[in-house]
């Protein structure tokens, strides 16, 4: 019985990892891709670690599994946020269907800071033209 519970957890976890991979491949721009990988990848791997902890059923393994899950859940948002910030500075284009970009014009490239008012054009990150999803995914 316990074997089938572990298999179910592993199936769910590996399915979430598969969803993360497909989302990384099919999403139209970088920021949507990051949301797909950070959520689905972390939860999928966390579920698989939980299944391994239930399978071994020892105190030492439970400790390691909890440490690993806590580490994954703490570090994934941090690294994703850092990378998203750096990518926005770098001028990665947004998807054509993006409705709102609250940060546009507020980042000052020379000081790498977020300003209250709109900064002049020459201090803004150079963003390439917005692109169509189907052009990227071709």
């Amino acid at each position: 019985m316990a074997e089938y519970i572990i298999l179910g957890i592993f199936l769910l976890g590996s399915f979430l990892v598969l969803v993360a991979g497909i989302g990384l491949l099919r999403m139209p721009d970088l920021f949507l891709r990051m949301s797909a990988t950070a959520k689905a990848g972390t939860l999928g791997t966390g579920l698989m670690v939980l299944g391994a902890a239930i399978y071994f059923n020892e105190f030492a393994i439970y400790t390691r599994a909890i440490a690993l899950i806590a580490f994954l859940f703490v570090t994934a948002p941090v690294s994703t946020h850092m990378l998203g910030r750096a990518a926005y500075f770098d001028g990665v284009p947004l998807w054509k269907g993006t409705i709102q970009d609250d940060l546009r014009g507020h980042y000052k490239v020379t000081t790498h800071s977020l300003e209250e008012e709109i900064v002049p054009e020459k201090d803004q990150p150079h963003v390439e033209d917005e692109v169509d999803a189907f052009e990227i995914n071709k």
Partner: protein
Amino acid sequence: MMVEILWDVIFSFLAIGFISAFIRLAKGPHLPDRIISLDLISIMAIGFFVAYAVLYDQSSFLDVSIILAIITFLGTVAFAYYLERRV
């Protein structure tokens, strides 16, 4: 018999996810896309290690996945720092 088929399904899910992440790593189109796909590939490798630990009943594979998680985080942070200072 049933259990073996389910394990095959689990590993094929992981492998298909791996392949799609590798396609994104090859295609780009920007540097952050490649960094995020490397990050996902290492997270998937953690999943592979954990699945092999259960399949072959070797609990020491879990230690490898802890180390890999730490290295992945440091690598992504270093890449993000490089990307931000490069501009």
